[in-house]
C-alpha cells in the first residue's frame, strides 16, 4: 500500500512521512494516518471541558448584562435590601451573601475541628485495617444526595433545636449549617488524610527520636508540614458549602435578611436561584435576570476559592 502511494505522489508522501513520524517509523502509512485521526478526536474531546467553562462564563455575563444596565453594580454589591420580585423592588445582594456566609460559617465551625481530628486519627493513630474500613464509610456521607440532608435538617434537626432553643423558627440557618457541616466533613477528612499521609516517615521518626509523644508529632510536625494541602481541603469544603443548594433551600428558608441570628430564617444565593426557577418569572424580565446576576456572583466566589485551593495543592513539595 505504501509503495503505491509513494509512486503516485512523491511530494505528498514526503510530506506525510515528515509529519507522521512517530516512534514507530516502520508502521504502514495507513495505520499512522488512522492514529493521527484518533489522536485528533481524543484531543478534541479534551477541549470540551474548556468549552464548557467558556460557555458558563459567557452565558452568565451575557444574561446578567441586562440586569447591570438597569441596576448599578454598586447598588447590587452593597445594597442591604433584597426584594427583586416584590414592589418596591430593591436589588442589594448583601442579605443573600449574609445568608450564604452565615450557613457556611456555621458549617465550618462543625466540619473544621471534627474533620481535622478525624483526619489525624485516621492517618496517625488508626491501624491500617481500621483506616481502610473507616475511610470509605465516611465518604458515604458525601455521597448522600443533598436533598436527603435537607429532609434530615427539616424533619430531625430543626425539631430538636426547637425543643432546646424555643425561639428557633421552622426554617433556620442553624439546621442548614449542621447538615452542610456534615456533608462537607468528608472533604476535609479525606483530603487532609491524604495530605498527612504524604508527609515523609523520616520527619516523624526524627521527632520520635527526640522523645516527642504521638500527639506532639501529629500536631507539631505532621500537621504543620502538610498545612498547605490541609488548607486546600478546607478551602474546597468552604467552596462546596457556598455552592450547596438543596439542603439550604429546604432547611434555611426563603427570607433574605441581614441577620447574625442563626435561629432565624435566611436565604442563601443558591436558594434564591432555586426560588426563581420554581416560580413563574417570565424570561427577559428583570426578576429573571437577577438569578443570573446572583449566579455570576456565586460562580466568581467559588472560582476564586477553587483557584486558591489549586495553588496550595500544586505548591512545590519540600
Amino acid at each position: 500500500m505504501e509503495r503505491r502511494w509513494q509512486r503516485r505522489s512523491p511530494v505528498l508522501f514526503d510530506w506525510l512521512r515528515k509529519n507522521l513520524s512517530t516512534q514507530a517509523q516502520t508502521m504502514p502509512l495507513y495505520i499512522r494516518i488512522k492514529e493521527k485521526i484518533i489522536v485528533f478526536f481524543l484531543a478534541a474531546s479534551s477541549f470540551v471541558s474548556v468549552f464548557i467553562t467558556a460557555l458558563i462564563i459567557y452565558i452568565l455575563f451575557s444574561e446578567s448584562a441586562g440586569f447591570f444596565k438597569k441596576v448599578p453594580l454598586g447598588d447590587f454589591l452593597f445594597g442591604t435590601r433584597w426584594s427583586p420580585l416584590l414592589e418596591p423592588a430593591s436589588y442589594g445582594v448583601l442579605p443573600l451573601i449574609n445568608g450564604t456566609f452565615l450557613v457556611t460559617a456555621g458549617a465550618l465551625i462543625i466540619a473544621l475541628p471534627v474533620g481535622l481530628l478525624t483526619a489525624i486519627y485516621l492517618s496517625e493513630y488508626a491501624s491500617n485495617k481500621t483506616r481502610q474500613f473507616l475511610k470509605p464509610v465516611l465518604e458515604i456521607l458525601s455521597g448522600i444526595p443533598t436533598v436527603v440532608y435537607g429532609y434530615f435538617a427539616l424533619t430531625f434537626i430543626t425539631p430538636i433545636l426547637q425543643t432546646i432553643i424555643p425561639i428557633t423558627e421552622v426554617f433556620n440557618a442553624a439546621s442548614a449549617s449542621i447538615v452542610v457541616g456534615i456533608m462537607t466533613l468528608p472533604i476535609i477528612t479525606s483530603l487532609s488524610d491524604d495530605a498527612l499521609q504524604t508527609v515523609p516517615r523520616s520527619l516523624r521518626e526524627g521527632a520520635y527520636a527526640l522523645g516527642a509523644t504521638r500527639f506532639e508529632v501529629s500536631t507539631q510536625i505532621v500537621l504543620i508540614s502538610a498545612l498547605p494541602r490541609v488548607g486546600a481541603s478546607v478551602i474546597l469544603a468552604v467552596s462546596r458549602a457556598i455552592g450547596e443548594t438543596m439542603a439550604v433551600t429546604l432547611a434555611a428558608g426563603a427570607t433574605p435578611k441581614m441577620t447574625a441570628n442563626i435561629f432565624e430564617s435566611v436565604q442563601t444565593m443558591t436558594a434564591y436561584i432555586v426560588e426563581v426557577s420554581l416560580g413563574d418569572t417570565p424570561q427577559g424580565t428583570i426578576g429573571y435576570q437577577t438569578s443570573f446576576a446572583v449566579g455570576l456572583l456565586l460562580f466568581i466566589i467559588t472560582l476564586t476559592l477553587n483557584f486558591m485551593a489549586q495553588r496550595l495543592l500544586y505548591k512545590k513539595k519540600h
Partner: protein
Amino acid sequence: MISRHHKDIFFKRTAQVTTFLCLGVLALLLYHIGREGMSYVSLDFLSNFPSRFPEKSGIKAALWGSFWLILLTGIFAIPIGIATAVYLEEFAPKNRLMTLIELNINNLAGTPSIVFGFLGLVLFVRGLGFERSLISGAATLSLLVLPMIIIAAREAIKGVPRTLREAAFALGVTRWQCTIGQVIPTALPGIMTGIILALSRAMGETAPIIMIGALTYVAFTPEGPLDEFTTLPIQIYNWASRPQEEFHQVSAAGIIVLLLMLFTLNFAALLIRMRTEKKVKL
C-alpha cells in the same frame, strides 16, 4: 499536673470519639429516614403516580425518569470523559496549554452544580430547543459529571505500570495500539469505578434539574428522550417542601428507595475496587 503523656492519651481518645461520632451521625440519619418512611414503602409506592393523597402517592414516573436520565447521561459523558483522560495521560504534550486544561477540569469539578443549571437552561432548553426534555436534563448532568469521570479515569490510567507500556513498545506497537490494547484494559476497573460513582452523583443531583425546569408533578412515564420528565430527587424535594406531616413520610419513603439504589451502585464500585487491588498485589 497534666503530663505530656496524659495529653497524648487525651488527644487520642478525643480523636477516636470524634471519628466514631461521624459514624454515629450516619447511622442516625439512616435510622431516622427508615423509621419515618418505612411504612409507606410498598409495591404500590413503586407503581403509583404522585397523588393528592399521601397513601396513594407513588414514584413510578420519578423512577422511570431517573432511569432514563442516568442512561442518557452515561451515553453522553462516558465516551468524552474517557477520551479526554486517555489524551491527557497518554498523548498530550507537557506544555502550558495542557496545564491550563488540567486546571480547568479541576475547577469545573468544584463548580457548584446549580451553575451548570444556568448552562443547561440557556444552551439546551432554549438555545438548542430541546425544551424541558430528558435530553436537556441528561446533557446538563453529563457536563456536570464529566470532570469527575475524567479525574477518576486519569487516576486509573496513571496506575498502569510503565513496564506494561514498555513491553508493548518493545514489541513494536504504536502508541494508540498500546493504549487500546494494554493501558485501557488494565485501567478499566478503575475507570468503571469512577463512572459508577459519577453516575450515582448524577442520580442524586437535584438543583440543575430544577433549573432546567423538570416538572414536579408528572403522571406519566417518559417514552423517549424528548419527553418531559421528573426524577426521584425532585419528587422527594417536592414532598419534603409540603407542610403536611404525611407527605414528609412519603418523602422519606422516596429517600429509602433512592438510597438503596445509590448504595447498590456504590457497593458495586467498592467490589470492583477491592477485586483489582487484590490482583495488583499478586
